[in-house]
């Protein structure tokens, strides 16, 4: 008993290029979470090959994976995951705490990231003094602060009302236009519609990938 291990993902073969805006969709248990964890260098495949920023994940140890996440990835979560009783600037600086960077540079970068998400006026506010949408903007600033190759957002609008969700998606769209690669998980079609490419999972396999159609659409316009 217990020997029939069911892999969470099977036969997945895909690439995400710099500058893309990808929505990952699928019912729970479809493998989309596992896919996101791997793309986020938080999990490693039991077989197959996964490269992030040109590095084979299987060849990296725990510390190197940490460094890879720190230098190339930004994370945005459904529940914002901000440190309580900590102001926006300090929250945004969190990833920089694990880098060699002087305090002045950390502060400058954190403030620049907050300006970029439209929170220039809320730098010193703690999460409890901010609305849900503002908290998520702080979280996005935190994901941006280390100039990542890619931002991974896990249901980033799941805890927000529709209007605020639209604002946040507008921010993601703007960031993508400026060149930031974005991969987001959602189960709402309206949210996924903001992305330029959608990958659908079911039972551990990719059942739909709009990459080709989008390219065609772009050539046609």
């Amino acid at each position, binding site marked *: 008993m217990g020997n029939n291990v069911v892999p969470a993902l099977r036969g997945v073969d895909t690439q995400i290029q710099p500058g893309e805006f990808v929505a990952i969709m699928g019912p729970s248990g479809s493998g989309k979470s596992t896919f996101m964890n791997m793309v986020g260098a*938080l*999990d490693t495949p039991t077989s197959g090959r996964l490269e992030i*920023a040109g590095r084979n994940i299987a060849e990296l140890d725990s510390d190197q994976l940490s460094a890879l996440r720190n*230098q190339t990835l930004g994370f945005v979560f459904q529940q914002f*995951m901000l440190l309580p009783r900590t102001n926006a600037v300090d929250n945004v600086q969190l990833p920089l705490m*694990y880098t060699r960077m002087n305090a002045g540079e950390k502060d400058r970068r954190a403030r620049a990231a907050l300006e970029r998400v439209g929170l220039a006026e809320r730098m010193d506010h703690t999460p409890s003094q901010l609305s849900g949408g503002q908290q998520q903007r702080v979280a996005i600033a935190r994901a941006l602060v280390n100039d990542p190759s890619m931002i991974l957002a896990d249901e980033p609008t799941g805890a927000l009302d529709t209007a605020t969700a639209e604002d946040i998606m507008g921010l993601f769209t703007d960031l993508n236009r400026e060149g930031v690669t974005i991969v987001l998980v959602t189960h709402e079609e309206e949210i996924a519609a903001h992305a330029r490419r959608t990958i659908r999972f079911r039972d551990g396999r990719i059942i739909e990938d709009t990459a080709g159609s989008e390219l065609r659409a772009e050539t046609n316009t």
Partner: protein
Amino acid sequence: MKHGIDPAISTALVTDAALTEKPGLHLSASLTIALKAIRTNAVRSFLTMLGIIIGIGAAIVSVSISQGAGQQLQEQIQSFGTHVLQVRPGSSFFGGRSRGAGTARPLTDRDVQALGQMNDVIEAVSGRVSAQVTLVNAGSNWPTSVSGVGPDFARIENRDITAGRNFSPAEVRAGDKVAIIGTTIVDELFGGGDPIGAKIRIDRTPVTVIGVLAEEGASSWGQDQDDTVWMPLETVRTRIARTADSVPDDAGRVYIKVWDHLDVLDVQSEIENVLRVRRNIQPGADDDFALINFAEFIRARNQTESLLGFLLAAFSATSLIVGGIGIMNIMLVSVTERTREIGLRRAVGARQRDVLTQFLVEATVLGLLGGILGMAFGMGATYLAAGLGDFPVLISPWTLAGAVAIAIFIAVFFGYYPARRASRLDPIEALRYE
């Protein structure tokens, strides 16, 4: 308009060097996090530290008391002299077979003379008969004690005579009415003026002051050693204590100063044998005198007193272990409460050792704060105990530094397991933790 991200950077491949780059130790950042966490749960943190506070406090009290007792012991031994023995009439008062002072055969001048002939081992010997008296000088009264002693007594007591002179052997033999007085007596009867040659009355006996003892101050158990009068033994026993009425040559208690280069314990049995022969004690019979080695006596007494120190030390160790377990417990709670924060930190790039460091720093800060509070508590309790119980204490900076170091060690030792557990959390599980 473009902010920040340069596509050339964001698409660049990550190099080996970048991945193995060691971020600078962010101890100050960890310290900030730790202080914030402790401040946020101030009451809980304080309760956690109580064990450490009490343990460190008790440790400081116990060490300070035992060091104070040790210092007092040294002072007592110094003040008696390590080479001074006392002989009392009657069997040893350690043995519990005392036949009572009245029945004991007194020590006499002949015993003192016999001991005086052992000048290869004995540097000085003197009998001593004491009496409580009232001194009178021109209307000033002063109650004190008088000791009738031989001319060598100053050498045994290791005291100098700063003004005037010591007794002459002739004065001692004749029982002249002369006295050497301490500085307290000088102050009380002469208002600090020159007493040499002055006549005072001791009870009803007129006496001439011939010398003043060098000031000694209070002994370590608080007795004023300058509140004393020395007179020739013969004078005291015939005119003041009047012990000569029953035993004309009563020498009272006999004080012996053994040569410094000899081992007192070796000489003790030799002295005992001489006295047994002198006093015709049959082989196998008990001594009818007691030979007391002050240094040994004080050491023995202090050993029983150090039981208190031992109990306090045991209490302190128990408290510290309980305090350590308290820290471990609260750190485990802290790790559990902050599981998602740990997951977040790991996701944004914290290595396992960064998380380990963070929680170890938090434990260290708890230990340090507990140690400092315990230090304050311990010092307060020590001085309070010293004031109430009237015993000497010695709080040395080493005790305090050692106590804080122990507090930190305990905190790190017991904080390591929770910190390691935090560092080993799977980031995915931790992020998902509710």
